[in-house]
């Protein structure tokens, strides 16, 4: 069994990268002096995976929201639900489905081996029946309704729906009432067999743990399976946005907005350097230390909710600016003007260095807690990187990189504004 050690000297951190004979990648970061341990068992299967690859290489479509539905159902078994099992050991367990992955996790300060066994066991043993599927449709139906009332969620999905014609990132993670009504127990088994094979998954553990104790449980509980990492279908998507504006009324006090800039790249995923360069670029244009921020703040156009995100995954990359504002269109104009200004006038080297210094500190701040460390280990692995890649890459970013990036992205001809207005 190959056990690599991945270190970063400056951070004085290290973790073990293990190719387990079962086919599963296991990542373990022991943290001295920590009382608790966090483990996540994740699969590279999320809401954007609306296609299953068949044996003959063709792709079959599955209903929207299936990944999330499967996540809910996996906790059940013929005997004891996973939650009931974790209740006996005192762990705090949970799961989540995001755009590109599903994760099952627990954190505990005792009974780690028992908890790890429960985790590995319940995720590897699916149990779906028509009766349990129907019951879940009721619960998830209510979850979908709950999200429809959440303005932050609606403003984002409306933005994505207008940005993308075809990409599945525009679909609500939980699906819709109609789409989940089409899900059957057989479909869940098909998805499970396709995506929940150990070669498409990762186990990441951080905190009060050792390699030996993790491997002792893994050796006993993991069942080797045939399979490979699932391939994602590249879906054709035009360069243009579907619509450049939309508004919806919800019960809010101040309007909310999200301004998205669609990008067009030759490769489906961004590199660490591209992502970091974009973080720096966005902070220099609209972060809390910028002239734009001051102008918007002093003109009463934004409040402390204003922020940005570089939203990227397999097949999609876009920049999102969002917040609350009494005049979203005015904010949108100011942001576009500022982008043009930087495009024409370039960047101050001092501002650039200061922004990098801040980023350095913020990356370090993100490496304290075992929750983010374990999740980052898993996410980095799925991206073909390691947890220190960002930290090592940021120093290589230059002002020239930022300038080039700005020339390629943030094009207002490919932008869309989504607004939520009060309904009184």
């Amino acid at each position, binding site marked *: 069994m190959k056990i690599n050690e991945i270190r970063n000297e400056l951070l004085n951190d290290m973790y073990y990268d293990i190719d387990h004979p079962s086919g599963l990648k296991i990542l373990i970061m022991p943290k001295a002096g*920590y009382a608790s341990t966090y483990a996540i068992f994740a699969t590279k299967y999320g809401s954007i995976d609306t296609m299953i690859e068949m044996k003959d290489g063709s792709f079959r479509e599955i209903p929207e929201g299936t990944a999330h539905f499967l996540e809910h159902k996996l906790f059940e078994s013929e005997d004891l639900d996973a939650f*009931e099992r974790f209740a006996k050991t005192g762990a705090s367990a949970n799961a989540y489905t995001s755009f590109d992955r599903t994760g099952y996790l627990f954190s505990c300060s005792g009974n780690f081996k028992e908890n790890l066994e429960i985790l590995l066991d319940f995720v590897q043993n699916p149990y779906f029946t028509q009766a349990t599927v129907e019951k879940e449709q009721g619960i998830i139906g209510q979850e979908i309704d*709950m999200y429809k009332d959440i303005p932050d969620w609606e403003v984002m999905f409306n933005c994505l729906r207008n940005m993308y014609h075809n990409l599945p990132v525009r679909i609500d993670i939980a699906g819709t009432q109609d789409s989940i009504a089409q899900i059957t127990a057989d479909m869940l088994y098909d998805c499970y067999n396709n995506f929940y094979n150990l070669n498409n998954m990762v186990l990441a553990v951080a905190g009060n743990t050792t390699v030996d104790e993790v491997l002792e449980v893994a050796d006993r509980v993991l069942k080797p399976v045939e399979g490979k990492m699932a391939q994602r279908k590249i879906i054709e998507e035009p360069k243009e946005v579907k619509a450049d504006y939309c508004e919806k009324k919800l*019960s809010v006090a101040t309007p909310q907005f999200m301004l998205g800039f669609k990008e067009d790249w030759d490769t489906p995923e961004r590199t660490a350097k591209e992502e970091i360069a974009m973080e720096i670029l966005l902070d220099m244009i609209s972060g809390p230390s910028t002239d734009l921020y001051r102008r918007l703040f002093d003109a009463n156009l934004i409040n402390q909710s204003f922020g940005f995100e570089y939203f990227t995954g397999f097949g999609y990359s876009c920049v999102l600016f969002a917040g609350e504002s009494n005049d979203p269109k005015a904010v949108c104009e100011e942001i576009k003007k500022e982008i043009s200004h930087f495009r024409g006038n370039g960047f101050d080297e001092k501002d650039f260095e*200061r922004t990098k210094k801040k980023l350095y*500190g*913020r990356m370090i*701040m993100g490496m304290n807690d075992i929750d983010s460390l374990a999740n980052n280990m898993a996410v980095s692995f799925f991206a073909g990187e390691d947890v220190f890649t960002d930290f090592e890459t940021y120093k290589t970013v230059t002002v020239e990189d930022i300038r080039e990036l700005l020339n390629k992205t943030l094009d207002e001809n490919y932008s869309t504004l989504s607004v939520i207005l009060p309904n009184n």
Partner: protein
Amino acid sequence: MHFENIAEGVRLCAQNTDKFKTCRINFSMAMPLDQDASARAILPFILHRRCAKYPDFIAFSRVLDELYGAAISAGVSKRGEAQILSFSMTAIDDRFALNGDTVALECVQLLTDIIFDPLTDGESFPADIVEQEKRLLVEMIENEMNDKRRYALTRCEEIMFKDEAYGINRLGSVDEVKALTPEKVYSAWKDILRSATIQVTMVGSMDVDPVAEILKSRFSSIERDVAKIDTVFVNEVNQPEYICEEMPIKQGKLVMGFRTGMADEYDNSVAMRIAVDIFGGGTYSKLFSVVREKMSLCYYCSAAFFSSKGIVMVQSGIEDINEEKAKSEILNQLSLVAQGEFSDEDFSSSIKSITDSIISNNDTPETICAWYSSQLLRKNLKTPEAYAQELTEVEKAQVIEAAKTITLDTVFMLKSNGEVCDDED
């Protein structure tokens, strides 16, 4: 943990450790929750963006960037009938500073600068800044209704505690904020420095002594006169009140407020915590496993215990048509706990689960700070381990007794008014 008295009603609580990559320092300042709530609530927001040394908020932000992205946050919370203003700062540990910068101590200095040396305009805060922060605070209060779960809880509290200080919103009210003047806000600032119960909590590798010195010197010029903070524990419930409101929403929000029968925050509180946990805490609780999982009545259904006021609040996201069923089942599950209808396994699971999560508080600077700063009104600070020990000493019979005294006081239901239609797409 190191504890030290800095001045009257001001203490320092510090954990010196190099386990983490960052350091964190929190100032929590408690005053009675009363008619001055708005004037006090605006203070953390005005103060945290600038100070006398750095009057311009963008320039101040750049100073923080240069300190490797040090982050200052401000907040207002409520604990019992105390309003708590807090200022927190997170910075990288000095060992990660390039060029031998001493980041941590500089950050502590900055934090005291913003609290003790704010930007003033003679004997007041600058009028334009006060106006700007008033607008932001009004927006913050008004936008609380955006999160319907939060809104329903706030409404239930307003109704249940209409004759008690606890019913006051921790941020005050829109009308009172709009009526604030720079003089009133300035006076509230002087007031908290003089009379708030203050705790400074820090975690990190920096030495405690220099920080204690800085704090002592700051407080040496302030004549302290600590305000008394009392929380009233009401236990008489004549008839539960029911209020229903309608809004254009899809999912209904049900909130049920209960009185626990406690005389004060220490009265049987550990047993009560376990009782509430078995009733509606984790995924093994009655509310989750029955109301959600078995009966599919809701997406979320949980109970929260607030020992500082002796209350339990149950919250659930349900379809409007299930309101009666959900209410009656929630009450049924509570009565089962009160009758001892839970297994020894449920009892030990609850203790294990609460203990487990309490011990985990030791693993980030933020959770350590939060654990201790939440105790700022207590005479003696309890470690997570000490609390966990108390949990293991509780007997099942005590939990049953505790559950028996939980009484329904108020029900608030936020329903759909039928105006929302499904999206097409």
